[in-house]
């Protein structure tokens, strides 16, 4: 049991171990050099990633089915380890001058551990625990620009909306439990066909169905809040804008991605019998989300807000992919999240570097950036092209497969809406490109000296954006793991 426990929980334990090491450093001494600590943490995160990649693929079930892991879940966790490492590297310039760098990492890594537990959750209780474990430190992280009022505002907004969505989730979970007597995702899934029937004894089949749909809608709303699906997106832009850039990046890529993994599992296991009901809901939400995100993004003046709305639109595209058949939906969503991680972190990485060194975050400030900082400009351009879905970047493949997966159901009106949204989104990405490459500026951002660590992170992002798509086996690998999903 002991060995099995360690083997199954390897990735979670590694993250927690780093937190504990940091805690001891904090307890041991106040007089550490921030740079040293940052270097150490990044090395530890690198080792963590390497260990995760080398981990033997195991299929483990722990805690009476509450926690399970398999090759696909290990891959998902590795993706997040990579993302966390990249964000941590990009945060270097910002944290260098920050008094509480250690605390930043403790909070960040607890969040990550929470997300890991959530992804691996075998029942809804574990899922909820993991989610909350990640949410509360995240709220604290949003407030990490301690002197800025905006940052505190972001934290308050985040905690309020999270609390509300958690309440919705809990309500949905409790309804489900009341109706079926179990929280176990596997059992709920196994009882696919007879689940409504079992309740029919109490409620009659229509009533049972209605109750189930109601529970689903509550759960869906909870999820929708976390992944900022319209109309539950209102917190997103303000929180993204107010939080420090690395935290925004983390929120938009990692926490969102993890909730997507959990969401797709719940959708395709527990709620598969309801597919007819939720298909239309998802279609509607996807269209709304894409349109709203894109239309609001059109007129933003701040890059962070633009990226916030663009990330809402991207969620809409992911929802398009989710409407497909289980295997293609799962594979294309996970693939897209990997692609999205590279592209979005590339864009946020540039914002992080520029913001940490100059404090400028407006699109107008980026005018003429290419003249002074060609490297940053190309990273930004490639990342934005990837977000817009332009070949040869991986974003093209990601979007293509999401829409292809969605088209498998034969709803071409819906796919046309998605394609139209790709065109709309191109406009605002090109606005940024135009500012960087074409517009003249009397006071452009000066030549920035990029530190080694952020430079590495940016190069990894660019490499990821350029290679993930062209190398077809990445998708095929994810697909093969999803095949028995």
């Amino acid at each position, binding site marked *: 049991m002991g060995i099995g426990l360690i083997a199954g929980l390897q990735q979670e334990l590694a993250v927690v171990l780093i937190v504990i090491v940091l805690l001891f450093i904090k307890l041991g001494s106040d007089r550490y050099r921030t740079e040293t600590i940052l270097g150490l943490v990044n090395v530890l995160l690198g080792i963590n990633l390497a260990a995760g990649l080398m981990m033997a693929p195991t299929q483990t079930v722990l805690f009476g089915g509450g926690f399970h892991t398999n090759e696909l879940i290990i891959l998902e966790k590795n993706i997040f380890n990579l993302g966390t490492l990249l964000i941590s590297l990009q945060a270097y310039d910002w944290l260098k001058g920050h008094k509480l760098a250690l605390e930043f990492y403790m909070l960040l890594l607890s969040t990550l551990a929470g997300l890991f537990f959530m992804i691996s959750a075998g029942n809804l209780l574990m899922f909820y625990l993991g989610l909350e474990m990640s949410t509360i430190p995240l709220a604290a992280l949003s407030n990490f620009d301690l002197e800025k009022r905006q940052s505190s505002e972001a934290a308050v907004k985040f905690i309020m909306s999270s609390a509300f969505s958690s309440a919705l989730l809990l309500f949905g979970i409790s309804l489900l439990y009341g109706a079926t007597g179990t929280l176990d995702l596997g059992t709920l899934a196994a009882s696919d066909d007879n689940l409504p029937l079992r309740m029919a004894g109490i409620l009659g089949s229509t009533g049972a169905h209605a109750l189930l749909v109601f529970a689903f809608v509550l759960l869906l709303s909870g999820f929708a809040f976390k992944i900022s699906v319209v109309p539950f997106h209102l917190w997103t832009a303000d929180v993204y804008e107010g939080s420090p850039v690395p935290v925004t990046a983390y929120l938009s890529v990692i926490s969102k991605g993890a909730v997507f993994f959990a969401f797709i599992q719940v959708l395709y296991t527990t709620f598969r019998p309801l597919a007819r009901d939720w298909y239309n809901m998802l279609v509607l939400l996807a269209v709304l989300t894409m349109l709203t995100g894109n239309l609001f993004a059109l007129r933003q003046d701040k890059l962070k807000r633009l990226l916030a709305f663009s990330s809402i639109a991207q969620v809409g595209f992911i929802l398009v992919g989710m409407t497909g058949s289980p295997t293609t939906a799962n594979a294309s969503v996970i693939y897209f999240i990997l692609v999205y991680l590279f592209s979005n972190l590339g864009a946020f990485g540039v914002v992080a570097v520029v913001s940490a060194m100059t404090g400028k975050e407006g699109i107008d400030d980026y005018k003429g950036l290419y003249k002074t900082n060609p490297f940053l400009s190309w990273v930004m351009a490639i990342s934005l092209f990837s977000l817009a879905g332009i070949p040869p970047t991986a974003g093209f493949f990601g979007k293509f497969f999401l829409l292809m997966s969605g088209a*498998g159901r034969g709803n071409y009106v819906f796919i046309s809406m998605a*394609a139209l949204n790709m065109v709309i989104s191109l406009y605002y990405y090109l606005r940024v490109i135009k500012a960087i490459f074409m517009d003249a500026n009397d006071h452009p951002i000066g030549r920035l000296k990029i530190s080694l660590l952020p430079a590495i992170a940016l190069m990894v992002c660019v490499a990821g954006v350029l290679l993930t798509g062209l190398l077809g086996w990445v*998708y095929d690998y994810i697909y093969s793991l999803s095949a028995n999903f």
Partner: protein
Amino acid sequence: MNLSLFIIIPLVTAVAVMCCRGLRQARWISLAGSLGQLLLSFVLLFRFGQERAAGNSSRMLFEYRHSWFAAWHIDYHIGVDGISVAMILLTAVIVLAGVLVSWNKGPWSKEFFSLLLILALGAYGFFLSLDLFTMFFFLELSVIPKYLLIGIWGSGRKEYSAMKLALMLMSGSALVFIGLLGLYYGSGHSFDILQLAQVPISAGVQRTFFPCLFIGFGIFTALFPLHTWVPDGHSSAPTAASMFLAGISMKLGAYGCLRVATYLMPDAAREYAPIIIVLATIAIVYGAFATMMQKDLKYINAYSSVSHCGFILLGIGMLTRAAINGAVLQMISHGLMTALFFASIGMIYDRAHTRMVDRLGGLLKVMPFISTIFVIAGLCSLGLPGLSSFVAEITVFIGSWQHPGTMYRLATILACASIVITAVYILRASAQTVMGPVKDPQFSVLTDAAWYERLASILLVAGIVVIGVAPFWLNDLLKPGIDAFMVHAGQTGLLK
């Protein structure tokens, strides 16, 4: 023969250009790369002819297939028939000419050249592709370089034009994308053109997705009323980019209409033919009249491109053998002619710093060479016998006339009549700019074409004249491809 070289060479050249320093290195590397590419195209032509002469009658030659996304049955699949060989030759000539006319392009010359080469890469890949996914990949690849080329190095309302072009072409790609998905799911999960041609595609799928594909590709080739990006885009673009846009990029759309939409869904093509023909005729006539009103030389050529590309769509819409043949000839002829036209306009603009017809005049006295090629391009545009357009247009007209319907006849007559309008605007423009006394005394100090400009022009003129005098060479090259196309179009008759 390894066709992937056509994609690798521009890529390597583009990367090399990005790594070098200064204009001098950038242009020599680009020249070397595009010259190599042209030689390679001739090697391909030669080898292709050899294979065909040896009796190899397979549909596509030099095929290469590599599994790309096995889960979706997507392959990197390339191969050529006569039509693609001709298009590749056209691309190689125009890219080389484009590099030559941009010889002193600054600032940011290395970015300029590498974007141009990436554009070329997209075109080569597109013409080589036998897999719709690969094809779509290359089609979209060429959108952003165009945006950057126009937006950074353009003139006039460049940002507006660049954005308009990018958004309209993206909309075109989006439609193509929907059409591709429809084909994929409607035909047994394949993107392979050769395989799709074997599968009967149901009437419903054809009816729904043919318009998506045809309009999508049509936007690229200035299908009325979605042609509005053409005048703005072409006139704002720097010379090499205009040459590429009008010479090759518009042909991507035409090639897509032919090889994807019409080839794979011939029944729907027949059903929608009247609409295509009406739109094409409007484009021809409207484009010609719109050209008459233009004062800017680049706008003149841009609107006349709308009119001339109408002939391509007209030929495709008619679906007779001669008309299709004429459409393909027109693709190549218009590519060369319009590139030459834009090149000469660019040379004039570089020197006189104006493109307004009423401000130019008497250029023949100051720059005889440039004026001559300008006139040659103009004469080609109005279809002078001995030059390529004559061959192409007359083939289209003969093919169109073979269609017995009254409406088709009417369309043919209107299209023929537009030639007269073409003559009006071309002759008027050349008379006002080239002939007569030197209008502005400042013009008298201007220099004639430099060696690189002469080389570029001679290259393009040679192409025009060779096709015009000896069209049978090109026709022999195209014949098997068009025959196969017609056989396929005749075989299926689901809708009848």
